[in-house]
């Protein structure tokens, strides 16, 4: 029993809707705060890219040398040299502008492929769990087979079939992630489906489809939200890896993985060209991982009720 003095507080807390409770917890979660901060920054950079970028990201500059190290006037770089905060790459393009535009691509690829994977995974998993029987068996065995491949190897094989390119990378990374979502949703559906309120709704004449959409799905969504956030992180990593190997975005697209791949042989004489894109990838992935961890803690009903 809490102290009498805090009755007001307790009352206030109990009046919150579940959504408000989660919101309350996540805004106070330390790692989620850091995650939201980085992600907010990345989104701002991506939206404001044309305003922020000092140069055209694919334009070859004429007045600079290849792989010039960073030059910042404020830090003592001679004023007669053009300012390139992150330096110039092997094709004489401004690295800062490429990093800024790269944020757009990474976020779009990460979110788009995770969304596609979630959509397909949720539909397959929900139908498998809800219909059951041979359909369930068929779908889940197929998912088992997809899970039997190491994810990046399968993604590479899919790109080999579809051919290199950004859209195909997006598809490959999504297909590889589908089984995870399908499994998570199916497990939740199986759990929810047996509960009394479902039988009650069925008795009231709610159609199968209505049951699935209105009653089963909302109860199965929590794990998907967490998994989805972490899924965006791995989608960004995987697509960067494919681009690094030369199977993804074609040059001169400002894609972080591709930028790293193009300059990997100059790591000893122009390390900035390798270090900076890598840090950009790491920060973006870190943001989604931290938010995912925060969401997991905030959405866990044991923590909500147990305190």
């Amino acid at each position, binding site marked *: 029993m809490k102290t009498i003095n805090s009755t007001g507080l307790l009352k206030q807390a109990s009046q919150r809707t579940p959504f408000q409770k989660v919101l309350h917890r996540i805004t106070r979660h330390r*790692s989620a705060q850091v995650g939201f901060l980085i992600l907010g920054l990345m989104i701002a950079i991506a939206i404001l890219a044309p305003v922020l970028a000092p140069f055209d990201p694919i334009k070859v500059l004429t007045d600079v040398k290849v792989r010039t190290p960073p030059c910042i006037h404020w830090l003592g770089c001679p004023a007669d040299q053009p300012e390139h905060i992150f330096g110039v790459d092997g094709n004489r393009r401004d690295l800062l502008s490429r990093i800024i535009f790269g944020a757009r691509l990474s976020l779009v690829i990460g979110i788009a492929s995770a969304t596609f994977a979630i959509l397909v995974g949720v539909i397959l998993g929900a139908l498998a769990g809800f219909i059951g029987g041979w359909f369930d068996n068929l779908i889940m*065995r*197929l998912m*088992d*087979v*997809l899970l*039997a*491949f*190491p*994810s*990046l*190897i*399968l993604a*590479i*094989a*899919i*790109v*080999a*079939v579809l*051919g290199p390119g950004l859209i195909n990378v997006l598809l490959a990374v999504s297909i590889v992630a589908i089984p995870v979502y399908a499994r998570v949703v199916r497990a939740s559906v199986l759990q929810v489906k047996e509960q009394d309120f479902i039988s009650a709704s069925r008795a009231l004449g709610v159609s199968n489809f209505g049951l699935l959409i209105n009653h089963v799905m909302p109860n199965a969504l929590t794990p998907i939200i967490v998994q989805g956030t972490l899924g965006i*992180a791995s989608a960004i*990593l995987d697509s*960067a*890896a494919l681009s*690094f*190997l*030369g*199977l993804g975005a074609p040059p001169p697209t400002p894609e972080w*993985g591709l930028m*790293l*791949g193009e300059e*990997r042989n100059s*790591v*000893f004489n122009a*390390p900035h060209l*390798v*270090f900076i*894109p*890598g840090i950009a*990838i*790491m*920060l973006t*992935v*870190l943001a989604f*991982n*931290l938010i995912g961890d925060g969401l997991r803690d905030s959405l866990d009903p044991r923590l909500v009720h147990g305190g």
Partner: protein
Amino acid sequence: MTTFIIRRLILLLPVLLGITFITFSMTRLLPGDPCFAVMGEKATVAQCQEYRQRQGLNDPLPVQFVHYLNNIAHGDFGQSLRNNRQVTDIVMERLPMTLEVAIGATLFSTTFGILLGIVSAVKRNSIIDVVTMMIANAGVSMPVFWLGLVLAYIFALTFKGTPLWIPPSGRLTSGLSIPPLVQTYNLQNLSGPMLTLVTFASNTVTFNALITGNFKVLGDALWHLILPCVAVGTIPLSIIARMTRASLLEILGQDYIRTARAKGLRERVVIIKHALRNALLPIVTIVGLSIGGLLSGAPLTETVFSLPGMGTELIRAILSRDYTVVQAFTVIIALIFVTINLIVDLSYAFLDPRIRLQ
């Protein structure tokens, strides 16, 4: 236990069939005529017809699939479209390198991951815990190819001229080599699967050097393995450390830990004997899963460190449309992955008797 193993093996069959079916369909879905891929754009219609007949490409797809399965079961993955070598030979040449890195990285990540996890859990909220968890968070977010390049920069360039210098690429220092076991032990009359096995052992440089007592080559090979293993091992290390910490913290709150402490056991015994043992199940799962991750990362690390493994060969095969190699490598890597998962499942039964009884 035996019934448990047999049941798991039977459950594996449909998965294996599925793996081969998916890789088979993938290569059949590929754009372009395989005939032109092999014989060049100038091949005549008659030549192609003859080629298709010879390769069995005119048969109905189900018949082709059965032939394909039959060949795989006999260890025959066909010929490379590019250099007419047997794919099995290429695998025997390339697989050892990939496995050496995977094993080294597993040892590195498991040892240090569990150690860091224990320290973090025991000294919860201390500076060690905070730093370890920060590193672990960064570790899971790093692209492995980037970490590889950064390590190469630090150890090969910054430490140049110091004893800490580590070679950034290759398998052995140039000039060093090791004779194949067939030559060392005069096994010229070997053939068939035995020869394949000996070739495999022979190409596993560390193993070859160890059994022939060539410690100079062994040391050099291990020295070259350090950076790739650390690079590939860092992500699993982070995951293992996080999992060990979480799992151990949960166990440390249990009543029997309090009892163990109350009866006066030393803290070390409580942690290692009572807590860690019970916390092992999720850790083993994560270790198993991360070995799969290591295989996944092979194309990346091998590219970064210019290692002659399965990964670099897979990328070469894809870029040069050498589909038989792509097909074979995908199947083999998936088979290794499935085997590891099976071992993880079996180790559950070993670690937790309750699972055996179910």
